[in-house]
């Protein structure tokens, strides 16, 4: 899955020079670099996210899933394209809209569905739910639900990478709405000041819950906020999978080479409400339909078929496999046991045993 690219910035052809070559496109370049099987793999990831989340919505309606459910539907190209650039020693932090990033990083969807069902077999033993998927074996440090907060944790892991000389890079995802709070600015300052290997990926889906970007941010082009910190930044089409992959790939190599962090603003759009409860009064059906007609997953599917990377029958078969896999995850989650009451004791709250109990023994 790793790109066949050199480790240093100097060996990476600049995207601008690549783009000026009229004969090549992100698609053709990626095909050259990756080969057809890997392109289909990227498609598989996007479609798996899509179908997994459609199933989540269904399970939410059937009250199998509780709490908040923030779907990534429509934004899959950003997560899959960006994460496809990461190596095993790299790290990911994300926000509550974390299903897509988790699946792109290869987390087990049985465990993810089980987490949503509040089961012991879930990635976090049912303690986290939709907003808190994590898998430390994949350096996937989790979804965080306090807007903007996890950027600082990401910078902290990047500091550890730098001090431990692991050559690891931290990729952190967040929304346009997260770029107005102090934690965003603190994290940018720290990262640039100490040249931390962080790739900040802002998923600009034009809304913070129901508040349009024009209403919530003095600067509408989020990537320009990096200029206050002398930080490298770029704005990219977040709906084109291979553009995302290529451009974020440059950002990752830049960060890995020790030159410092990069802020990537990926322009994207969520097709569904902010969360499952959203009535979407703030945007018109026509607007949503307009974007849906540019569905990044379906566009890439068509590109694969049109370019002869895969036959339409093969893709249909792949889609069917994905559906089966998603169904299986529901069965797994359904059949799994609920977490035990030890999670309500000190041993569920603290890693080390306590000298004295915090839980009142006389509790009724």
């Amino acid at each position, binding site marked *: 899955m790793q790109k066949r690219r050199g480790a240093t910035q100097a060996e990476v052809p600049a995207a601008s020079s690549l783009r000026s070559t009229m004969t090549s496109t992100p698609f053709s370049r990626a095909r050259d670099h990756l080969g057809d099987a890997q392109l289909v793999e990227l498609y598989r990831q996007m479609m798996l996210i899509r179908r997994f989340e459609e199933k989540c919505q269904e399970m939410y309606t059937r009250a199998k899933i509780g709490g908040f459910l923030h779907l990534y539907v429509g934004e899959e190209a950003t997560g899959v394209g960006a994460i496809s650039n990461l190596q095993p020693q790299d790290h990911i932090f994300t926000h509550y809209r974390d299903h897509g990033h988790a699946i792109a990083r290869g987390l087990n969807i049985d465990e993810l569905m089980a987490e949503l069902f509040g089961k012991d077999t879930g990635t976090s033993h049912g303690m986290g739910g939709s907003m808190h998927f994590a898998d430390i074996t994949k350096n996937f440090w989790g979804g965080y639900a306090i807007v903007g907060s996890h950027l600082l944790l990401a*910078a*902290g892991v990047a500091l550890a990478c730098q001090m431990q000389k692991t050559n690891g890079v931290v990729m952190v995802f967040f929304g346009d709405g997260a770029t107005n709070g102090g934690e965003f600015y603190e994290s940018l300052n720290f990262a640039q000041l100490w040249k931390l290997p962080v790739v900040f990926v802002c998923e600009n889906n034009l809304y913070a819950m129901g508040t349009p970007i024009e209403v919530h941010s003095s600067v509408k082009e989020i990537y320009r906020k990096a200029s206050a910190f002398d930080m490298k930044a770029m704005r990219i089409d977040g709906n084109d999978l291979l553009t995302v992959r290529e451009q974020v790939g440059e950002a990752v190599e830049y960060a890995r080479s020790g030159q410092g962090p990069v802020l990537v603003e990926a322009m994207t759009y969520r097709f569904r409400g902010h969360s499952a409860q959203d009535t979407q009064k703030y945007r018109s059906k026509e607007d949503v339909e307009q974007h849906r007609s540019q569905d990044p997953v379906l566009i890439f599917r068509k590109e694969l078929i049109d370019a002869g990377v895969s036959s339409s029958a093969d893709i249909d078969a792949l889609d069917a496999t994905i559906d089966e896999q998603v169904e299986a995850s529901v069965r797994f989650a359904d059949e799994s046991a609920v977490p035990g009451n030890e999670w309500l004791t000190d041993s569920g709250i603290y890693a080390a045993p306590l000298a004295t109990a915090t839980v009142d023994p006389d509790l009724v």
Partner: protein
Amino acid sequence: MPVLTVREALQQALHEAMADERTFIIGEDIGHYGSTYGVTAGFLEKYGPERIRDAPIAEAGIAGLAIGAAMAGMRPIAEIMSVNFSLLAFDMIINHAAKIYSMFGGKFSVPLVLRTTNGWTQLSATHSQSFDSMFAHIPGLKVVAPATPADMKGMFRAAMADPDPVIFIEHTLMYGIKGEVPEGDYIVPIGQSVLAREGRHITVVTYSRMVHLSLQAADILAKEGIEVEIVDLRTLRPLDMSVALESFKKTNRAVVVTEDWQSYGTSAEIATRLYEHGFDYLDAPIQRVNFREVPMPYAKNLEQQVVVTTDRIVAAIKKVLNRS
């Protein structure tokens, strides 16, 4: 046994901690400035800027980066210059440091030690507070507030060895206090209270700087034949009430002395536990001595009336004894 100040004991503990290559210190003015209260003086020269990280004035960032680094295998010490500024880091401390272990199903923890200081001396309303109860309220945190140089060293050692986030509360008016400190490896476990003074007539339950004031009060009362027993809690979470309850069952009377506001403060929890578990032994209502409930005034004459003094502790003890 060598006699050290609290500052020196802490310095020793921090040097010991720095022997672990995974440890670095991050905080404001810990290096170039020479350290606000002198604790990390000379550290930058000794360990270099990579491990003694002068941070921008960004408390959320200091705590947040330390949490992240701790998650990823480092053993950071974060220093928040004054607890008053920790309010800007509360999201990091409460929503993150305290939650990460359980929220992610125990798959990883936050081995962070966050040092900070209570204290006052005509610093007015925003620089004289203590938020002990706010930290101690939070499941997932461990909160320690040692009183003596020995406990400073021993509990710091325990905090560094702990896989959970530990809030280590110091006091600006305590750095010069002296006491014997064992040499070499010395660990005082988190979550164990201790008797600071034996006595028969009344129990004072307290911690941090108030231990020293209570000891002074006990000296005064001893001259009148009143024997005060003093319990130093040392840790606020997990709260070990065993020593206090044992003492209370003997004396049947208690005064709780804490340097924070009374309403919903640490003394409320301590007194409640005494009532809950010691009701049958109670001979008089428990009396509390705390900050008066106002934002701290600047004027010295007013400030002196807000803070806890030895006189107020003596008066409280006498009041309880006179009732029974």
